[in-house]
C-alpha cells in the first residue's frame, strides 16, 4: 500500500484536481485506491459526493473529523467505518478498480486546536511521547486498514502546515507537490521542503529519545516524489514562456519535476466535480489531449514508486 500526501503551502494550485485525477486514473488502471480528504474546504469530498447527501448521511459521524476529534462523543475508533465508495465514479470505472474516499468536514479546521491541547508535558520525555502520539493519529487509522485492501492511499492535504497536515506527512511514504508555474506557488515548494525536513527531524529525534522498542516510535522518512506543474497555459503546443521560466527555475533548484504537466482548462476542470467523475475518466474519448497529460503524470508516478 503506497501512501502519498499531495500538498503545497500555496492554495489554489490545483491540488484537489490533481489528487482526484491521479486517483481516478490509478483506479482505471485496475488499482484499488483510497482518497483521504484532509482539507477543511472539503473540495475533494464534494468532487465525488453530493453536498446534500454528505450533510444528511455523512457529516455527523463518518468524516475524517470523527477520527481526529478529541471529544469522546464525536470520536470514531474504527477508521474503516469512515470509508465511502462514491457511486458515480465507481460506475464510471465499471469494475476496473475501486475508488474510495474518507470525506472531510468543514469543522476540521477546529480539530487542530483540539490536537494542540494534547501536546506538551512536564518533561522532555513526556513532550516527545505526546508529540509522536498526536502526529501518529492518521497513521494509526491507516494501519487499521488491511494492507491488501488498497494499492494506493492518496491524501489531499490543506494548504498549511498545521497538525493535521503534519499527521498526513507522518503517515505517508511519499509527498507529491502540485504547483502553478508562478512566483508564489514555486516559493511554496521551498517552504514545504523546509517544513517537511524539520518535521521529520523533530519526529525522529523524539522517537530516538523514547526508551521504548514499540513500533510506535519507529522513525519516518517520507520521500519527495517531485513537483507536478498544474494549470499550465499552452501556446503553439508548448507551455507559454511565462510558465516555462518557473518550471526551469524549479528544476535548476534541484527539485525533481515531472516531465508532464496539467494544462489550464477551465471548461473541463471547473465543471467536472459537479458530475462526480474526474476529467481523466469522463473525457477519455473526446478530450484525449487533456486526458493524455494526466495519464503521462500517472505513468511517471508509477515509475517513481
Amino acid at each position: 500500500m503506497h501512501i502519498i500526501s499531495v500538498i503545497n503551502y500555496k492554495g489554489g494550485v490545483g491540488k484537489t484536481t490533481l489528487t482526484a485525477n491521479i486517483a481516478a486514473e490509478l483506479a482505471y488502471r485496475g488499482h484499488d485506491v483510497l482518497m483521504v480528504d484532509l482539507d477543511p474546504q472539503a473540495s475533494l469530498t464534494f468532487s465525488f459526493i453530493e453536498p446534500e447527501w454528505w450533510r444528511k448521511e455523512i457529516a455527523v459521524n463518518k468524516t475524517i473529523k470523527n477520527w481526529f476529534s478529541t471529544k469522546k462523543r464525536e470520536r470514531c475508533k474504527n477508521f474503516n467505518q469512515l470509508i465511502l465508495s462514491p457511486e458515480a465514479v465507481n460506475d464510471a470505472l465499471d469494475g476496473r478498480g475501486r475508488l474510495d474516499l474518507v470525506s472531510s468536514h468543514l469543522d476540521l479546521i477546529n480539530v487542530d486546536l483540539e490536537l494542540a491541547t494534547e501536546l506538551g508535558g512536564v518533561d522532555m520525555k513526556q513532550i516527545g511521547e505526546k508529540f509522536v502520539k498526536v502526529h501518529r493519529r492518521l497513521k494509526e487509522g491507516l494501519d487499521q486498514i488491511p494492507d491488501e485492501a488498497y494499492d494506493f492511499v492518496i491524501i489531499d492535504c490543506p494548504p498549511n502546515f498545521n497538525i493535521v497536515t503534519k499527521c498526513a506527512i507522518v503517515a505517508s511514504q511519499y509527498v507529491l507537490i502540485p504547483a502553478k508555474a508562478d512566483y508564489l506557488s514555486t516559493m511554496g515548494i521551498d517552504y514545504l521542503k523546509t517544513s517537511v525536513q524539520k518535521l521529520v527531524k523533530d519526529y525522529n529525534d523524539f522517537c530516538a529519545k523514547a526508551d521504548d522498542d514499540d513500533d510506535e516510535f519507529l522513525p519516518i522518512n517520507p520521500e519527495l516524489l517531485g513537483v507536478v506543474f498544474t494549470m499550465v497555459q499552452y501556446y503553439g503546443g508548448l507551455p507559454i514562456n511565462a510558465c516555462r521560466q518557473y518550471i526551469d527555475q524549479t528544476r535548476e533548484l534541484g527539485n525533481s519535476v515531472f516531465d508532464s504537466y496539467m494544462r489550464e482548462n477551465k471548461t473541463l476542470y471547473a465543471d467536472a466535480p459537479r458530475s462526480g467523475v474526474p476529467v481523466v475518466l469522463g473525457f477519455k474519448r473526446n478530450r484525449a489531449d487533456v486526458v493524455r497529460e494526466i495519464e503521462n503524470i500517472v505513468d511517471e508516478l508509477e515509475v517513481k514508486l
Partner: protein
Amino acid sequence: MLYDLNNFYLIEIERYIKFLKSLTPAQLAKLDIGDAQISFIFDEIACCDVFPVNHADNNLVMESILESISQLESKAEFDQYFKSLGLKRKDLEALCRAKDIPYTKRDNMSALKDKLYERLVGFKLRSRAIQNDN
C-alpha cells in the same frame, strides 16, 4: 568558486573541460583512431574593448556572461558585474532570449536587467533564504 568575472578565457577552459568530460566512450574512441577531431577556430575581430564583439551576435560570449551571472551571490555583485559589462539594449534582449525570459518592447533597460537578475540569481537567493530561515 566565483570566476574572475572579466576573464572569459578561464571560463572557456572550464567549458572545454566540461565538454571533454561529456564525451561518450564511443566519441573518445573515434578521436583516438582519428575518425573525429575537436577544432578551435581563431576568429579575428575588429575592435578591442573588454568585450570586443557584439554580444548579441556571439553565442559563446552570451553563454559565458550567463554562466558568470549565474555564479553571482548577491544583488550587489550582480549590479557591479552588469555595470562592468556595459551592455546595450540589444545585448539584454539577447540574454533574455537565451534564457527564455519573456520581455516586451515596452520593457526598458532597467526592467530587462531586473528580469535577468530574477531569472539567473534572484530565485536561487530567495530559495536559499527560505530554506535557511526556517
